């Protein structure tokens, strides 16, 4: 597996994602600059990392969606390529229309950084195939704008199509229906507010994030 970690101006979890993939997962990784208009052929997975792309000016992810790399990511995803967005990456995915809904200010109006418990709601995705349904994962959050919101019919549809991948056990930000992560209809694009790359090393207190990367490894190996 080779992951392409996108670097926007203001990305600040890019090195963390790169480190987790190469050092904790034992796979390969490369950085992709935001001005690149194509995803290199050897990339299996695109990661949109956390941070403050373009300073989060206007709205989180609102400017990133116009960058050349997002055009390339859209094509990559349309062709079935695997895309993961963590935190700011999730915000960019909703802004660019790759995932439905939006992420708005936490209901508490404060930035929150702490580990949270997530429940795995579906294993029918390449990101959770090795997890168990109902499994609890302890993974940190760190965001000010992580309150997931969408029209009721969109939420109903996400539920009906089994596209809610993670829910918070204790909702930290006011997200609709406790949603922490969702996937697209094709099930190859994942967006989540928590940071699995921060729960990949025993020294960091939790390795619960590794199951996402290991699931991808097994799915890609089976291809």
């Amino acid at each position: 597996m080779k992951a392409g970690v996108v670097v926007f101006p203001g990305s600040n979890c890019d090195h963390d994602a790169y480190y987790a993939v190469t050092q904790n997962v034992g796979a390969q990784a490369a950085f992709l600059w935001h001005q690149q208009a194509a995803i290199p052929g050897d990339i299996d997975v695109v990661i949109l990392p956390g941070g403050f792309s373009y300073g989060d000016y206007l709205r989180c992810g609102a400017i990133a969606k116009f960058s050349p790399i997002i055009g390339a990511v859209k094509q990559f995803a349309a062709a079935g390529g695997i895309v993961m967005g963590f935190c700011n990456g999730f915000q960019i995915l909703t802004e660019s229309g790759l995932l439905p809904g939006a992420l708005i200010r936490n209901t508490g109006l404060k930035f929150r950084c702490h580990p949270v418990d997530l429940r795995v709601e579906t294993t029918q995705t390449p990101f959770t195939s090795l997890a168990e349904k109902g499994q609890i994962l302890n993974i940190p959050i760190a965001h000010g704008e992580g309150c997931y919101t969408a029209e009721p019919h969109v939420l109903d549809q996400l539920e009906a199509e089994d596209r809610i991948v993670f829910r918070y056990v204790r909702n930290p930000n006011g997200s609709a229906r406790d949603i922490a992560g969702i996937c697209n209809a094709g099930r190859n694009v994942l967006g989540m507010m928590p940071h699995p790359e921060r729960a990949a090393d025993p020294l960091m207190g939790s390795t619960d994030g590794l199951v996402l990367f290991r699931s991808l490894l097994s799915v890609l190996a089976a291809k």
Partner: protein
Amino acid sequence: MSTITPEVVAAHSLTPDEYQKILALLGREPSLTELGIFSVMWSEHCSYKSSKVHLKKLPTRSQLVLLGPGENAGIIDIGHGYGIAFKIESHNHPSFIEPFEGAATGVGGILRDIFTMGARPIAVLDSIRFGPLDDPKTGARNRRILEGVVSGIAHYGNCFGVPTVGGECVFHKSYDGNPLVNVFALGVIPKDKIFFGRAEGIGNPVIYVGAKTGRDGIHGATMASDEFTEESKQKRPNVQMGDPFLEKLLLEACLEAMYTGAVVGIQDMGAAGLTCSTCEMGSRAGTGVEIDLQYVPQRETGMSPYEIMLSESQERMLLVADKGREQEIFDVFNKWGLDSATIGFVTDDGMLRVRDHGAIVAEIRNRDLADEAPIYDRPHTRPHRNVPMEAPAFASADLKADLIRLLASGDLCSKRWIYEQYDYMVRTNTLAGPGGDAAVVRVKETGTSVAMSLDGNGRYCYLDPREGAKLVVAEACRNVSTVGALPVAATNNLNFGNPQRPEIMAQLVEAIEGMAEACLHFETPITGGNVSLYNETLGEGILPTPVIGIVGLLPTQAPVPSRFRAAGRTVMLLGGVGATDEVHFGGTQYAHVLLGQMWGLPPALDMALEKRVQAAIREMVAAGVVDSAHDLSDGGFAVGLAEASFDGVGAAVTLPASALRPELLLFHEGPSRILLSTNSPEEVTKLADKHGVPAVAIGATVHGQVVIEGYLNATVEELHQPWANALESALHA
């Protein structure tokens, strides 16, 4: 007629004598721009004119010190080809006037000091002090200042992508009109890639990079060197505005530009902006710097040379490049979408020559600005002190209720409400985050870790500045040792009142001397720091508050936690129950919180014993014989025991027979004590004996209970709840 009237001189916070010195150095009358340049470079903030003679007393060298004071940050060798650059800096005055921007730009300034050296910042800690949140008159303002300062730190650090991993938050009425915001930052640097703020190489281009220059922050350094009066609110435009996104781009671009090999010297534009960076870079290299202001990127029109030279707009750097390789640098900054422009060149005449469209607007010798500032050996008498030596009559009616009140007090309660607003995990290095004795981050490049602790104690230093300063150093070193790290270096932030008052100057002098003695003893040379004077509002000074930042090295990656981990372990008190009497009890949290008083002296410190206790705990951690270790300090034994229990595992202990009154026994703050739990009490005793320190077995860990036999009996929950909720309830009262 001369434009430089005595009023103009006074408005620049220069004394008539200082103005005479300027006339003598120049051999002529300065222009207004030149006067402005002198006033910022000779301000207390930039020149350390009141403290310099005493700062020389601080130890600055050891085998590990790669770079001591004088550059943007000190650097320590951590082995494996790497060093760490670190420094602490204050942003007290701006944070009072405009809490959010003041604190945010404080973080921005210290981060630039670190990456100017070529180091990538990996940790920030902050030491913040406010007036009481519940004061009927000033509480609302203090709450607003605290919320603003915390949001400002969070905003800047989170966006920049550096974890805020620890610090301290303290309350006292003397900080009512004078909040203290001291920010510490640390970065990792390859030893062979250290950059200096020197304008080397005659003819080399001087390049301006980063944000455009605006009118914000003009005379910030001068403001930071004045007392506050009723007019201070009018100084709001003096406070700078920060943009952490720009700073993040500046970081990446600077490191990338350095990597090209085309950068000869680099310095950030912080206090005194373009003025300070040009003349200091020239002065350090013994060269001259000539610039033309027409090439400076500006975000406002019609700025005068005076304004451009004195602006403290944030997120700017000045660098000197190898002549002919400018384009490599421009390419990097273009890639990151930042301005970069050649604004001048290095000369051989030692002058700072500023032109505006060719016409000379200032021409001053660099060394006159950077090194010839007046130095004052200000008169100092006995340290200011207005409390009795003798203790008042007091007695505790209910030790458990007292403990709960202490745990819910401002200084001791949980700071979770604050630190959860900080991204303390970004960069995935945080092994011990906020809330423990010391913060620990791993260094991925070396496979080792760095421990850091910030510590200050205004009450101790008020009672005895010399002993108080020693205690502060001892405690910060103990914090670092308790997680298993060897303290190796220090940075200090000296927060004091008006040095022109001899009794305040005496506080400063004695605190520096105490700090010097302790840093020498604990082998933690001070590699840099900051002095913040004139922390007074309407004649009321703050408690003397020297803050020390201690950095320690951990040979492995995993620190020992501060809380009990499992029931059935032996609980031991390394260093014993300690000694005290009523006179040495007057600076404790008990006296402060429960009696609302201060008297006597700070706890007595035996530095030789302290050093042995620290060596013992480090060896125990390294040998893997302790399960948890927590240093006893604020609030004494009972508070330390409660804190160690907050993961749910408490302890039932019996203290050895003592002649001390219960209040003193449970709450005295005698240093050199560490509370630990272990599965190998014999091994602990053996190592304690080896270092010649007592290690008393006092009981065992148990689930859910905190029992001090004969004194108090509580559930962990009874103690935890008030501790956990106090700050949030105080803020939303």
